[in-house]
C-alpha cells in the first residue's frame, strides 16, 4: 500500500516517520550529553518499563481517536481493574485467574456503558467519560480502600517476571502495540474507524454500523486499560486507589503527538507508542540532566511545544515549494 518515496515532504507528512526521526535525534543528543547515564541498558529497560502502562492505554485511546472519540475514564479504569482483582484475592481468596478475569470484566462493563450511552443515547462523550471517570474512581476507592497488598505469588509473577532482561510489562506492551498495529492496518473491522472518524454520516451511508463500532471502540479501550491496571498492580505488588490519576491527559497527549487529532480520522497505532516513548525519554532526560522540581514542568512543556512547532514549520516550508 505504501510505496511512497522518502522525500522530506513524505517524512513530515507521516507522523510515525517524523516522530521516529525526532526520537532518534533526541537519543543521539542525549547519548552524547550523558554517555554513561543515558545510553545504558539499565536505563533503557527502566524507561521502557515505566512507559509500558501508558502505552497500553494509549493504544486503546488511539483507536478511539481514529474514530473521532476519546475517553477520559481510562485512568480510573486502570485503578478499578487492579482494585477489583486485588479485592477479590485479598478479601475473598479468589484464585488469581478468576480475580484477573473479574477485573477485566469490570473494565469491559465500564466500556460498554460508556459506549452505549454515547452511541445510542447520544450523551456528549466529554461529559459521559468525565462522569464515568468520577464514578469508576469512586468504586476503585471503595474496593482498594486504604490499599491492598500481599497478593499471591501467581499474581505477582504476571508483572514482575523478566524475560531477556526486560520485565514482563514491556513484553505485553510490545505484543499489544505490534498486534494492534497489524490488525488496524490490515483488517476491515479496524479500518472502519478511519471512515467513522473521517465522516460519520458518509460512513453510515456506506453501510458501516457506526453506533455498534463506537461501542466496540469504547470496550476495546476499556479492556486495554483493564489489562494495564492488572499489570500495574502486579508490578507494584499492591492495588492503589490513586493509580492512573492524570493518566488520561498524559495518554491523550501522547496519542496526539503520535499523529491523532481530536477531529478523528487520523493516526496509527505505532504513533501512540512513539508519542509515549517521546514523552518518557524527555522525562528521563530531565532527571538525568538534574533539572529539578519546578523547572521540570517548564522545560517539559517547552520541549513539547518546540517539537510540534518545528514539525509544523518544516512541513509548511516544504509543502510551500
Amino acid at each position, binding site marked *: 500500500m505504501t510505496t511512497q518515496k522518502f522525500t522530506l515532504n513524505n517524512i513530515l507528512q507521516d507522523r510515525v516517520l517524523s516522530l521516529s526521526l525526532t526520537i532518534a535525534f533526541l537519543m543521539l543528543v542525549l547519548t552524547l550529553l*550523558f554517555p554513561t547515564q543515558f545510553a545504558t541498558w539499565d536505563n533503557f529497560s*527502566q524507561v521502557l*518499563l515505566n512507559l509500558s502502562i501508558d502505552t497500553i492505554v494509549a493504544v486503546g485511546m488511539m483507536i478511539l481517536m481514529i474514530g473521532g472519540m476519546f475517553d477520559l475514564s481510562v485512568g480510573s479504569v486502570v485503578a478499578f481493574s487492579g482494585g477489583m482483582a486485588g479485592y477479590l484475592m485479598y478479601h475473598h481468596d479468589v484464585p488469581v485467574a478468576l480475580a484477573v478475569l473479574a477485573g477485566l470484566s469490570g473494565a469491559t462493563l465500564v466500556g460498554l456503558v460508556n459506549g452505549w450511552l454515547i452511541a445510542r443515547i447520544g450523551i456528549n462523550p466529554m461529559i459521559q467519560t468525565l462522569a464515568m471517570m468520577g464514578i469508576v*474512581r469512586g468504586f476503585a*476507592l471503595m474496593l482498594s480502600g486504604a490499599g491492598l497488598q500481599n497478593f499471591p505469588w501467581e499474581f505477582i509473577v504476571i508483572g514482575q517476571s523478566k524475560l531477556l532482561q526486560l520485565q514482563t510489562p514491556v513484553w505485553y506492551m510490545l505484543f499489544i502495540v505490534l498486534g494492534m498495529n497489524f490488525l488496524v492496518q490490515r483488517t476491515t473491522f479496524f479500518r472502519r474507524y478511519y471512515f467513522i472518524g473521517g465522516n460519520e454520516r458518509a460512513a453510515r451511508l456506506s453501510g458501516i454500523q457506526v453506533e455498534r463500532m463506537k461501542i466496540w471502540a469504547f470496550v476495546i479501550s476499556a479492556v486495554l486499560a483493564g489489562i494495564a491496571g492488572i499489570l500495574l498492580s502486579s508490578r*507494584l505488588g499492591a492495588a492503589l486507589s490513586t493509580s492512573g490519576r492524570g493518566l488520561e491527559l498524559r495518554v491523550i497527549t501522547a496519542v496526539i503527538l503520535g499523529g491523532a487529532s481530536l477531529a478523528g480520522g487520523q493516526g496509527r497505532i505505532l504513533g501512540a507508542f512513539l508519542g509515549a516513548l517521546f514523552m518518557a525519554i524527555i522525562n528521563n532526560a530531565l532527571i*538525568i540532566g538534574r533539572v*529539578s522540581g519546578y523547572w*521540570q514542568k517548564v522545560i517539559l512543556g517547552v520541549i513539547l511545544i518546540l517539537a510540534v512547532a518545528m514539525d509544523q514549520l518544516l512541513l509548511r516550508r516544504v509543502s510551500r515549494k
Partner: protein
Amino acid sequence: ELPPRTQEGTGQATNTQEAFRTATTPSAEEEYVMVTTAINLPLYVNHDQAAFKAWGEKKGVKTTILGPAEWDVPTQIATLEQVIPSRPAGLLINGTDPGIAQAIRKAVAAGIPTVVYDSEIPNSNRHCFIGSDWYEMGYLQGKRMAQLLKGKGKVAVMGILGMENMEAGFRGFLDAIKPFPGIEYLGKYDDKANVETAARIAADLISAHPDLAGMAGFDSNSGPGMALAVKEANRIGRIKLTTVDAEPEHLKLVQAGVIDYLVGQKRELFTALGAQFLYDMRHGTLQLSANDAKAGVVPIPRTVITGSIEIDKTNYVQFIQ
C-alpha cells in the same frame, strides 16, 4: 462593606466578635465534622479517620468526615465554607495549606469550636493546633541519612512541591546534612503523592547517578515508589532509603531491608485528642472562668506538638499489627 483593616490574628488574638458556642448536655445529635482533603489517602483513613470515628462512638456523638477525594485544597476550602452555615458542634480541620486560614477564621467567627491538626495554619485564629513539626521530621531523616551514608554520597529528596509542611521538611533535611560536606544534594523532586510517579523519578535518578547513595521521601507514597525502583534496579541495601509514615507497606519494606528508616507521625493523637478538645470546649469540661465563652477564654491548649515516631530494623516488629 469592607473587610476589617487589621489582619486579624497574628495567631494570638482569639477573642473575636462572636463567642464560641457551648452546650450543657451532650446529645446524640451533636455533630463533629472533620474537613480534610484526599479523603481516601490510606494514611488518613487508617489513622486519622479511624481514630476520629472510634472516638465518636465512644462518646456517643455523630462524626462526619468531609472533603474532596483528591489532594485539592481549594475544594477543601469550599467544603469547609459550606459546612459552616450548618453550624456543627465542632470542626476538626486538616491543616493542609496556609490558604485555608481565611476559611478557618470564618468558622471561628461563626462561633464554632475549631481545631487544626497535622500542620499549623498561621493567622488562622484556630482555637487549638495539634500536630507534628515537619521541620523536625525532615531533620531526623537528614540526620539518619548522614549516619547511614557515613557522611558521604549523593542524595535526593521527593515529595509534593509547593506544600508548606513538605518544604519545611526539606529545609530540616538540608540543615541536618549541612555539617557533612561529603554529602552531595541533588535536588528535590515532585512525585505528586503518586507511587508510579515516585517510582519513575527514582528509577530515572538511579540511571542518572549510578553512584546514588540515598533518597528521602516526604509523602506517604514516596517510600513505596522509591522502594519499587530500588528493587527493580537490584540496588537493595546499596541505596539507603528514609521516608515518612509507618503504614503496613512501609513496615514491610523495612522488614525486607529496602527502607532503612521511617519517621512516623502520631496521627491518632491528632484527631482523637483534637476531637476531645472540641468536646471539652463545647461542654466546658474544665472551666477556667464563670463563663469561658463570654469571657473569651479558650479552655483548651493553644498548641500541642505531638512529636515523631522513629522506626528502623530494631523496632519495626512492634508496629506490625
